[in-house]
Structures are given as C-alpha cells and as structure tokens.
C-alpha cells in the first residue's frame, strides 16, 4: 500500500480545483485498491464492489472542493466509499444499517485458539498456490461484518488503528477489540487448514518483520 503524502495531495487538490483536472488520476490512484477492498468487504460481490468504487471516485471528484484537510485525504475518501457501500447494501437487500451493526463489542471474546504446534511456518511458495489465497479469502468473507471491515483496513490494507477508527467512525479501543477477535477467529479457522501448506521446512516468518 502506498503511504499517504499530505503535501502532494494538498498541492494536487489545489491544482485540480484551479483547472488541471487530469491530476485527479494521480490523486486517487494510491486509494483505489483500498476503496475496492473496503467495498468488497461490505458487499461481498466483485461486480457491485467495482460499480460502487466507480461511483465513490466520481463523488470524490465532484465534492473535491469540500475536502477541508481536517482528516487525511484517504480517510475522507474511504468514509465516502463506506457511505456509498452502505447505501448500495440497503438498496440491494433492504437491510437496515442497524441490523448490519447488530453485532456488538459486548459479545464474549473468550475463545480457544487452534493449538497446533506443527503449524508455525508457511513456505512463501505456498502463496503462489491459488488455493491458499482462496482459503484466506473465504475465511475473511465468513467473518461477521464488524470484524471483516476492521481486518480489511488494518491487516489487508495496513492502515493504522487511528485511521481505521476514523473511517469506520468507531473508537480506537473498539478497533483493537474487533481486531483481536477477528484474528482469533481467523487463527482458529485457518490454522488447521494451513497446516498442509507447512510441509516445506523453511522459516518463513523470519524473512519479514
């Protein structure tokens, strides 16, 4: 993920508003991956996610003069994406936002991890196998919505806890609680399945810190 660059963004926005419209391509490019996956985590459908991603980007462009720089540009963009996504979700399923948010942080967080001392390392080559990606995607798609979007922003797009909280309009403490539960659920779900990928004896984790 590209790190945000506030000076570049501010300069870009000023010039776009002054007429250099083509710069909008460069402004939005660092955000486009996160927009898509945030929407995919909400809508669970590639076509819908891409469609709403396009609507989001057009909305960002049309409202660019309203960005005041109080938050990071990406935070603002992702908040718009989330609103658009929730709007689409309501349209699709007539589900209300409150039912989407029905899972609360008060649910018990007690869990027992999958205890598998034999799965401790994953060979990097395993990632070349489509199957591993499918396992991960399926596990994440199976998470309750409130955990899925936190995992998506923090772990998949590697956005920090503060910004994740700002996009989702929840407290940093809630982000941490949800992240903990999500990771615990994923570990429990995935560890037994990923065991099969650990056949090659190579310390993979040590390569990346």
């Amino acid at each position, binding site marked *: 993920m590209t790190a945000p660059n506030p000076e570049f963004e501010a300069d870009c926005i000023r010039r776009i*508003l002054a007429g250099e419209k083509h710069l909008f391509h460069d402004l939005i490019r660092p955000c486009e991956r996160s927009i898509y996956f945030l929407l995919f985590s909400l809508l669970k459908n590639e076509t819908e996610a891409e469609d709403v991603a396009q609507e989001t980007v057009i909305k960002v462009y049309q409202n660019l003069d309203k960005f005041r720089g109080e938050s990071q540009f990406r935070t603002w963009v992702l908040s718009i994406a989330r609103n658009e996504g929730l709007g689409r979700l309501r349209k699709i399923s007539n589900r209300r936002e409150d039912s989407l948010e029905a899972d609360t942080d008060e649910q018990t967080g007690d869990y027992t991890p999958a205890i598998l001392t034999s799965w401790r390392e994953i060979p990097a080559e395993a*990632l070349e196998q489509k199957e591993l990606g499918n396992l991960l995607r399926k596990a994440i798609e199976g998470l309750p919505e409130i955990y899925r979007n936190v995992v998506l922003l923090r772990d998949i797009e590697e956005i920090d806890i503060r910004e994740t909280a700002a996009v989702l309009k929840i407290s940093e403490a809630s982000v941490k609680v949800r992240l903990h539960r999500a990771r615990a659920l*994923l570990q429990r779900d995935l560890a037994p399945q990923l065991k099969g990928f650990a056949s090659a004896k190579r310390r993979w984790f040590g390569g990346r810190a």
Partner: protein
Amino acid sequence: MRIDCKHVWQHISAYIENDVDPQLRAEIDRHLETCEICSAVLDSTRNVVILMADDRVFELPAGYSERLHARIDRELEKPHGWNPDD
C-alpha cells in the same frame, strides 16, 4: 505474578501490534520461552496476519484500474465538476 495461557491469548493481537506495556510484554515473553502451545498460537496468528497483508492474496479484478480511470476520464470531460467560487 505468573500469567497463564488464557491470559496470553487475550493479548496476542496487541502483542503482535506491539501495543502492550513493557511489563506485560516481559511477562508474555517469559511465558513464551517455556510454553510451546502459546508460542505456536502466537506464530500461527502472526502468520495469518502476514498472509493477509500479502498483495497476492487479495488481488484486484483484472482491468479494475483501467475501467476506473476510463470512468474518471468521462467525468473529467464534462464542463463543470464543482463551483470554482465555492
């Protein structure tokens, strides 16, 4: 105070984020030295976190970016996007 396995599991996510205070971190480290189960749980959780961050696991649909920028181009061709006096 000696901490038990359950206590360690409660803090695994924060431990991975490097978001536990130094005293608790030391306690957890001491526990991990002797507890094979907790160090396996930590390693596997950390592996899941690392895998998720790998761009190869979550790939954008083919042509997503091209279609997005083509859509932007169509919007940019329109005479006015916003009010310059705003």
